[in-house]
């Protein structure tokens, strides 16, 4: 059992006894990872925040029945995915914004900028374009495939963890992920130069 897993177990036990500060500690500990995943699914900051907030409300409600058969993080991914799917059902045609699009600040709109020294402007442009195309392609996948792809490639969950999070047999996860990657290949086929396909 990892230290993190053990820490979660202690916090969960305290939460189950009604200790709200333990719930808050769980939230603080996992909120960034949760947001990262939600953002990668939604590509929209507000929507990602909604997904995460909804997910933690569900966590709070379900904590009394959490048996600890799986890691808290795996359980959280399951809840986040369900929240994402539920929100998407409700708001099917909500527009999304790209990481590279503008962001709202107190000083008005500005370009999102991420530091990445060591690349030439041309390389940087190509890389950004490639990433954007990749993100756009992921966004075109059906929600369920998108969740799988994001869990595996961006969040680096194992097949076993994804299977647990989505309550699917490992074989099904593997075959669906393969299908999702093939779909990605089709979508990206339209932009072959960027991927040297």
């Amino acid at each position, binding site marked *: 059992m990892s230290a993190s897993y053990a820490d979660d177990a202690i916090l969960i036990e305290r939460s189950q006894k*009604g200790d*709200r*500060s333990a*719930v*808050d*500690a769980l*939230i*603080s500990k996992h*909120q*960034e990872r949760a*947001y*990262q995943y939600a*953002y*990668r699914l939604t590509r929209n*900051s507000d929507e990602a*925040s909604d997904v*995460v*907030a*909804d997910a*933690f*409300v569900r966590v*709070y*409600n379900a904590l009394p029945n959490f048996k600890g058969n799986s890691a808290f993080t795996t359980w959280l991914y399951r809840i986040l995915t369900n929240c994402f799917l539920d929100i998407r059902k409700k708001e099917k045609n909500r527009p999304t914004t790209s*990481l590279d699009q503008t*962001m709202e600040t107190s000083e008005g709109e500005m370009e*999102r900028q*991420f530091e990445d020294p060591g690349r030439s402007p041309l390389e940087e442009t190509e890389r950004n374009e*490639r*990433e954007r195309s*990749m*993100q756009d392609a*992921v966004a075109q996948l059906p929600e369920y495939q998108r969740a799988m*792809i*994001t869990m*595996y*490639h*961006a*969040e*680096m969950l194992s097949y076993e963890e994804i299977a647990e999070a989505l309550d699917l047999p490992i074989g099904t996860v*593997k*075959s669906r*992920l*393969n299908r999702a*990657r*093939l779909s*990605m*290949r089709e979508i*990206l*086929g339209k932009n072959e130069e960027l*991927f*040297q*396909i």
Partner: protein
Amino acid sequence: MNAEKAKEYFSAYVEGTLDKGLRQQLDQKLASDANLRMEMEAFRSVITGLDGLRAVPVEIPSDLNDKIQARLDRHIWEKQRAKPAPWTLWFRNAAFAGLGALAIFGAINSLASRGEGSKASLAPDIVKSTSNDNQISARWEDKVVKLSYKPSGQRTVVVKAADGSVLKKVSLDNAVWESDLRNSNPNAATFGVQIEGETVESTYVVPGTQRSETMAGSGDLLKFAEAISNVYGVPVLLRAADVTGQVSWTFPPKTSLLEAVTHSVPGATFTAEMLEGGVLSLRQS
């Protein structure tokens, strides 16, 4: 093995987990099918590109925790609101059992603080005071008024005794402040709670250990609030820009608390409502 079937094994092939027999079949197919070889290379590029997504930074909003906590608090509040208010149950029981039976002994008037400045948030059964817009929540539990306040930004909270002396002054920076108002004196005690910068101070009147049977009186709004607390044994939150206005009251017998309070002062210039935390709110109209 045809091309479509072969594609089903692409992931396992790239990851090196394909059975030896299938791998050999696929190798043979790839050797003989140029299109499939091209597809395989494209597939590898897709996987490389997907793996690159993990390096794309995601900016975490600075107010993420606030949003989560606000949603959770609202959920808890709504859940709590769906239940009968604890005070309602208590009062119903008390009406049957007789208020006198609830007298509690003790003579210490104290202000106990819990986890000031900690990140601990609202307890599950705390509910927001619906008529209190300064975000302080109050809950009446175990003869203690439990206050909780989550500021947005840097705020200072001052707690004063009835004579105006400062009992506590706490500077907060987005941290949750929780404090108990406890009164072990026989009669109701008054505490002023003010968030610096707010024009209206919240005055909490906490019941003492004994109940009064004096059903009529006169004085300022503060005296009226104390009378309610002394007679009915409930905490009162008084929010008024000016508490010096004189009122006369007569609590009608055998009525509910809210009715009694509302009808006790002819032409009352205040609004009374029972907050979900079991605290009676009096607001100057």
